[in-house]
């Protein structure tokens, strides 16, 4: 029964799974960039930059991702239309990527901030006393040390993001959950299809967790 379902739907499942994995991966890259910028803003001396970063993090923490997805995909084009900008449409893939990146970016911001603050202040004092400017101190001394403490949290965030992609099914992004619904609509194999989807998520997340452990061990030995 399940075998038959797999055989007849493996193409669509593979494509859906591929979409899930790639949107998680690409959004993690953007989220890391957003998180890096936001965390540096949060740690900067400028009150305005700090406020912007904190507001962003608070907003993402306080708004469910599903609401954010609706806002990006439906809300913004509607607002633009009302403001007189007609014909603006945002592709579902782009909306998904923006939603995921913004969402994970806020958590990455906190992870990176924590990692940077965990580095002994003596490190930056030593670097500054040598005459290194702030950006070089960050890039050469602080961030490389911070990354080590951040890796477990980043992998954890990636696993969370990977599962959060399922929420994008509500705006019609063709990821695993969305496509599972489509297949169920055609086959009516409700239990079997959700079991297949569940196993795919579970196995992927477990593998990601194992991969994380390997990376962690590599970094720990790197010294």
């Amino acid at each position: 029964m399940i075998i038959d379902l797999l055989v007849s739907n493996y193409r669509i499942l593979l494509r859906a799974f591929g979409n899930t994995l790639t949107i998680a991966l690409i959004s993690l890259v953007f989220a890391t960039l957003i998180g890096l910028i936001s965390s540096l803003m949060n740690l900067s001396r400028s009150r305005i930059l700090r406020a912007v970063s904190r507001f962003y993090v608070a907003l993402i923490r306080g708004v469910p991702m599903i609401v954010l997805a609706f806002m990006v995909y439906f809300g913004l084009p509607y607002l633009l239309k009302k403001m007189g900008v007609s014909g603006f449409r945002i592709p579902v893939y782009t909306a998904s990527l923006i939603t995921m990146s913004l969402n994970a970016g806020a958590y990455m911001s906190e992870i990176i901030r924590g990692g940077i603050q965990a580095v002994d202040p003596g490190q930056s004092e030593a670097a500054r006393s040598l005459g290194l400017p702030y950006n070089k101190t960050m890039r050469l001394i602080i961030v490389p040390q911070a990354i080590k403490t951040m890796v477990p949290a980043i992998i954890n965030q990636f696993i969370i993001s990977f599962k959060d992609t399922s929420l994008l099914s509500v705006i019609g992004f063709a990821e695993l959950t969305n496509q599972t619904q489509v297949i169920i609509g055609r086959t009516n194999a409700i239990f079997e299809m959700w079991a297949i989807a569940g196993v795919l998520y579970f196995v992927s997340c477990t593998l990601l967790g194992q991969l994380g452990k390997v990376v962690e061990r590599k970094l720990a030995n790197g010294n």
Partner: protein
Amino acid sequence: METKIKLENITKSFGKLDVLKGISLSLKPQEVVCIIGPSGSGKSTLLRCMNRLEEVNSGSILIDGVDITDPSVDINHIRENIGMVFQHFNLFPHLSVLENVMLAPVELGKMSKEEAKANALTLLEQVGIHEKADVYPVKLSGGQKQRVAIARALAMNPDIMLFDEPTSALDPEMVKGVLNVMKDLTKRGMTMVVVTHEIGFAREVADRIIFMDQGKIVEEGKPLELLNHPQEERTIAFLNEIL
């Protein structure tokens, strides 16, 4: 008279706590000054003001005639000429000993990689640790770490060195090696400010000893004068405690 470092009436507070209450001090080129005093007297803070790791509340600090309390001063450029050695070494753990020493000259465009490497190896030899060049700091003893830290500070070829209790975190048997390296520096004409509890070292190498207490300079003088004939009661009490 030429002055290398000149502090004029500097004050510094952390919140409500006044740590430095009007300190004036000047050093001639090549002078070696040791600062002693009880913990909490402000001596480390005073030292850290000299390369602006701490910002003063008022007063001025002239290094080679340039007031580093002026916000428009390029402090990074000034710091290139002031080496600093910390109590807890603060070596960069993700870089090898050699990379620790090479980093600043290469990154700040002072030397090519080859020059910096040759320079670093020479310095490591001077501090007696060149055989550890490719090792990471975690593998070194405290005394070895501190000697690497001194080599790292020397790599930019500074003519001022600041030492913030450089032997306080060391096992007793490690202290001598570090002090010997510092003694060599005084012979090479380095201007040095050393916050220390090593009275023997201060007696031997300092041109002047400064005794600080409660954010003020209580007494200063040549080592033998100050150590053998202290004038102030607080100095006498402190010296009685530690000698």
